[in-house]
Structures are given as structure tokens and as C-alpha cells.
């Protein structure tokens, strides 16, 4: 009876794996070669060395009986089954498009000539590096990310310090500060668009003119929104780290006469350095990839003139640009608004490389500051 049940379970499991790998099965021909190579490596018989063979045959027989006679082959087949369900969609929806994307960035794909695009070498990249729009977009994204990282982490750390004190309603505060993070970027964008366009101007004073229609204040307005959304989440990371700081260290420093600021600087901060690494990495990546909130808030932002130094570099006087045209938006626009898919893809590749370099550098430098207890 038990055996039957396990057989049914086994069968159901195989059906499930099969269903999940339908795409793989259906494009079997191109993948067959890879799979064969893979199986060859995996199913290779490993010669197990039994040092005690001859000395204790009964033990060996017992072990064989318990583990099944061709145990290695069984394990290896299981290895493939178990990994298939995760790796198939990952290959199909991430890796294959990623590799295709590298190729497309070297073609003149426009979205209208799909299938007929031709290889044009580095022309797209040259095009991008000589365009002031992308340089401006990068410049704004860099400013935005730096300000964003500072503000979010500052606010989050202060909030974390606040709610780890002995307050009465700590759990309420934590849940409350975390709340904005539950709502999607797009929905948040509409909420704040209303606040900036209607609610705040009705108060009057300096707020009469909407903050998001002024190119000088639009970024500040966006940073307020993102900080409001994200600080609660980052706060949670800091709380977890702050709770791991041993209280006896704090007590000892109190007895030694250190004031609150000294305690924070010399004991708490070094001990939560690991949390700083993670939090800064997370804020950096989200700032760089910011798309839906900006889209819902200002759709790229109010128009402004190109800053003087970029006008000089690109010899492009008096051009107008969109002040919140961050990189993610720039990529989307060149692909789906101007239908320059090849250019958009090349921008995406540059974006990827920049993000990779910056985040690796950041993690490397932060790691050096971490202290092991």
C-alpha cells in the first residue's frame, strides 16, 4: 500500500516535471546536443573505491542493499529531474534572451525589420556615445542614485535606531513605516502625482506651483517618493542588524562613560557595517533600475535645457531634454517609442556593464569596512 502511494507520488512528480519542461521538449532538436553532452558528464560511472572490500563483505552487501544497487546512476538521474524545473525557464527567459540581446545590440534592428536586420558592428555604440541625450540621462541617473542612496539609508537608519529604543508601540511603528513598501511603484506614482499636482498646491505658499512640473525640483520630489516607499524596507534590514549588536558591549561603554554619539560611532556602526553593504547595494540597484514610479509620476519629467557642460562637450547648444529621463526610461523610449530596438539594446548593455562595475566596486569597498565579532 505504502509502495503504491510512493509510486503514485513518483509518477505525479514526473508528470509535473514533464509539464514544466514542455518548452524544452518541444525545442528538443537544438537542445538535444547540449543535453547529450550534459548526460555524458553526469551519467559517467564513478568508480567508487571500497577500501574495506574483502575485509567485510557483509557490510558492503548491506550498504548496497540499503542504497540500491546502481545508486550513482539513480542519483544522477534525480539530479537532472530536480534541476530541470528551475533551469528550463531560467534558460528560456533569461539566458537565451540575454545572449540574443548581445547580438541584437550589434544590428540595425528597428522593430519594423524584425528578422531582416543586419550586423552593423559597433555603429549603435558609437551612436550612443556621441548623443547628448544618453549622456544627460546617465548624468541625471548618477545624481539621482547618489542622492537616493544617501537619503534612503539615512532615513532608514534613523528610523531603525528610533524603533529599536524601548518604546511602547514599536511593532506598530515598524509595520507603519514598512507599509508604503507594499504598494507597487506604479500605483505609488499615481498617488504622489495627485499629491504634487492637486493636494499640495491647494495649500498655497511656495507649494502653489507643482513641484513636479518644475525641472529644478522634480528630482527632489521623486526622491521624497522613493524614500517614503523604500526607507521602511531598508529599516527592516538595519533593525535586524541592530538587534544583533551585543548589549554587554553597549553596557560596558556606558560604564566607561561614552556618550550616545560615541557609542553609535565606535560600537554600533562598525558592527552593522554588513547591513550597510547590503542596504547600499539594494538601494543602488533599485535607484538605477527605477522605472514605473517615474513613469506614473511625471512620465520622464518636465522639459529643461541641457546643462552647460554637456552643451560644450557635445557641441549641441540650446537643446531641450527631459529632466527625469533616467536610464531605464531612456532605454524603453528608444525601443518602444522611437522603434530603435538595436540602439535600445545597446543602451541596455551599457547600462548593464555600468551597473555591474558600480555595484561590484561598492560591495568591495563596503566589505573592507566590515568587522567580524
Amino acid at each position, binding site marked *: 500500500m505504502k509502495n503504491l502511494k510512493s509510486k503514485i*507520488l*513518483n509518477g505525479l512528480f514526473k508528470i509535473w516535471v514533464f509539464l*514544466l519542461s514542455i*518548452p524544452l521538449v*518541444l*525545442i528538443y532538436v537544438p537542445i538535444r546536443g547540449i543535453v547529450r553532452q550534459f548526460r555524458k558528464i553526469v551519467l559517467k560511472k564513478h568508480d567508487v573505491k571500497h577500501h574495506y572490500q574483502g575485509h567485510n563483505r557483509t557490510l558492503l552487501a548491506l550498504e548496497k542493499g540499503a542504497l540500491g544497487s546502481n545508486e550513482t546512476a539513480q542519483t544522477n538521474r*534525480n539530479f537532472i529531474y*530536480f534541476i530541470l*524545473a*528551475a533551469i528550463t*525557464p*531560467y534558460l*528560456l*527567459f*533569461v*539566458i537565451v534572451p*540575454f545572449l*540574443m*540581446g548581445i547580438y*541584437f545590440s550589434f544590428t540595425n534592428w528597428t522593430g519594423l525589420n*524584425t528578422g531582416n536586420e543586419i550586423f552593423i558592428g559597433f555603429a549603435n555604440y558609437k551612436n550612443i556615445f556621441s548623443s547628448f541625450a544618453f549622456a544627460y540621462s546617465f548624468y541625471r541617473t548618477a545624481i539621482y542614485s547618489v542622492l537616493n542612496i544617501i537619503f534612503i539609508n539615512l532615513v532608514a537608519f534613523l*528610523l531603525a535606531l528610533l*524603533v529599536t*529604543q524601548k*518604546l511602547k508601540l514599536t511593532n506598530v*511603528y515598524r*509595520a*507603519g513605516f*514598512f*507599509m508604503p513598501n*507594499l*504598494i*507597487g*511603484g*506604479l*500605483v505609488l506614482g*499615481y*498617488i504622489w502625482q*495627485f*499629491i504634487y499636482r*492637486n493636494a499640495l498646491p*491647494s495649500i498655497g505658499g511656495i507649494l502653489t506651483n507643482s513641484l513636479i512640473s518644475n525641472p529644478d525640483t522634480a528630482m527632489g520630489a521623486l526622491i521624497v517618493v522613493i524614500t*517614503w516607499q523604500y526607507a521602511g*524596507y531598508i529599516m*527592516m534590514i538595519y*533593525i*535586524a*542588524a541592530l538587534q544583533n549588536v551585543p548589549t554587554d558591549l553597549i553596557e560596558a561603554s556606558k560604564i566607561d562613560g561614552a556618550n550616545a554619539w560615541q557609542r553609535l560611532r565606535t560600537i554600533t556602526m562598525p558592527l552593522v557595517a*554588513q547591513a550597510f553593504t547590503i542596504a547600499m547595494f539594494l538601494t543602488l540597484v533599485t535607484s538605477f*533600475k527605477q*522605472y514605473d514610479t517615474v513613469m*506614473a509620476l511625471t512620465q520622464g519629467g518636465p522639459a529643461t535645457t541641457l546643462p552647460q557642460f554637456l552643451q560644450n562637450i557635445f557641441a549641441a547648444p540650446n537643446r531641450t531634454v527631459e529632466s527625469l529621463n533616467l*536610464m*531605464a526610461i531612456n532605454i*524603453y523610449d528608444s525601443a518602444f517609442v522611437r522603434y530603435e*530596438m538595436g540602439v535600445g539594446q545597446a543602451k*541596455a548593455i551599457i*547600462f*548593464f556593464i555600468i551597473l555591474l562595475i558600480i*555595484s561590484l566596486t561598492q560591495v568591495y569597498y563596503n566589505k573592507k569596512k566590515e568587522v567580524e565579532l
Partner: protein
Amino acid sequence: MTNERKATFILEIIAVLLLVAFFFPFFIVLMNAGKTSQEIINAPMAMPSSISQFYINVRNILTNPSVRYGRSFFNSLFITTFSLIFINISSGMAAWVLVRTKKKYSTLIFMFFLAGMVIPFQVVMLPLVRFLEVLRSWTGIPFKDTFHGVILAYMGFGAPLSVFMFHGFMKSIPIDIEEAATIDGCTKIQMFFRIILPILKPIFVTLLVLNGLWIWNDYLLPVLIIGMNGKVRTLPLAVANLAGSYVRQWDLILTSVVLAALPVIVLFLFAQKHIIKGMTSGAIK
């Protein structure tokens, strides 16, 4: 002693004030969701004159053809639920064999999964849309604007983080339990679902929260795979669609915003303890 109590009291007040400030946007939205369009334009900071307008607005949204709230809500729920189940189980299985197989290729495959964590969606999105068309012409199965297409896409994009976190957690589970189970005649599948999965519960919850928030609120992936007017469009798409077709009709937009945010907030209020614990324990790992 009194000094310290005074300090705590001041901190308590600061915290309450900050909490009020944090809730201010929600408050404005709720307040204006109960007004007519004209009232909102005239006095956005005033309290609504009567509660019945809120019901009228909600009914307008529920019957609005460009939102199709019930349908979109179901789609979002379906996609999120199944993506979460599939991501977690498939990544858990993969991570388990990757940890337990001490071979060079398993490290290589693990590295291969990790590589996905640094690939931003923007790099993959354009070729992905095209590749889905290619897949359709090869197999005859449509992937765009279908449940399985979106769910498989989320499985692909969710796999790296999930495999990474399961892998990290799994290393701390002693192998003795599994050996004992093998000797008792447990098959691999039984072992995974009966022994490993229950042990993985804490990290499982973390991933449910992280992936759940991401998938429920995601906009860019659905807009590309499903499309603004797709059959299986999710709640964010419905809101964007409404905001696109009724520009600055704040009574409709704000009510739809309330209705879109409500399910997650209600869920949060009920499962608050698990969600907060899940988020923090996952982040620091």
C-alpha cells in the same frame, strides 16, 4: 531615571509624528476617493461631504470596462499564486541537489544561476519579447498574453535569488537526517517534500514575501508580455490603463488606486508578523 524616561517620552512623540507623516499620503488618497471629480479639483484637502460618494466611485471602478476589476484581480491572484508555488518548489529542488551533489558541475550550475542576479530586466526585455514570438512559431504555443507564459517568465526571473537563498540555508542542514531517511526506504521525492521542505520553512516564507510583493506589483514585465489590453492583464496594468484613458479624472484614478492597494494591505495586516520576520531574516542572510 526621570531623565531617561523623559527622553523615551520625547522619542515616543517623535515616532508617532513620523508615523502620522508616513500615513499622510494614504490619508489624502482615501479622503479624495470619496469625492466627485469636481469636489477634488475645488478642494483636495477638504473632507468628503458624504460617504455615499465613495460607494458610487467604487461601483464605477468595478463596472468600468477599462479596468475590469474582478477579472484583473483574479488574474493577478492566479499569476502571483502559481508563480510563487512554482518558483519556490523548483528552486528548492534545484538548490537541494546542488548542495548535496559535491561535484564540479554542481558548483558550475550554481554559479550559472547566480549570474542571473546581476542581469537587470532592461537588458533582457527587448529580446525576450521577440524570443517569445520565435518560440510560438517553433512550437505553435503562444506565450504572450497567456498565464503559462507569464508564470514561466516569473519562474525564470525569480530562480536566481531563490536558488541562492535556498542554497545558503540548505548548507546548514545536517545530512544525517537524509541518510537516515534513505535507510528507512524513503525515495528522493518523498524526502524532498516530507523532510527538506518542512525544514526550509523560514526561508520559504521569506521568499514568498519577497517574490510575492515583486510579482504582485510588477509593471514592466506584464506590460511587455501581456500588454496593456491583454486578456490576462494584472491589476497594475488595469490601473495604468485607466489612468491612460481617463487623464486626470482623479475620482476614478484614486478609487482604483485604493482598490489595487487594498488586497496587499489587508493581507499585510493579517500576516504582519510573518511578513516582517520573513523580510528581515531573508535580507541579512
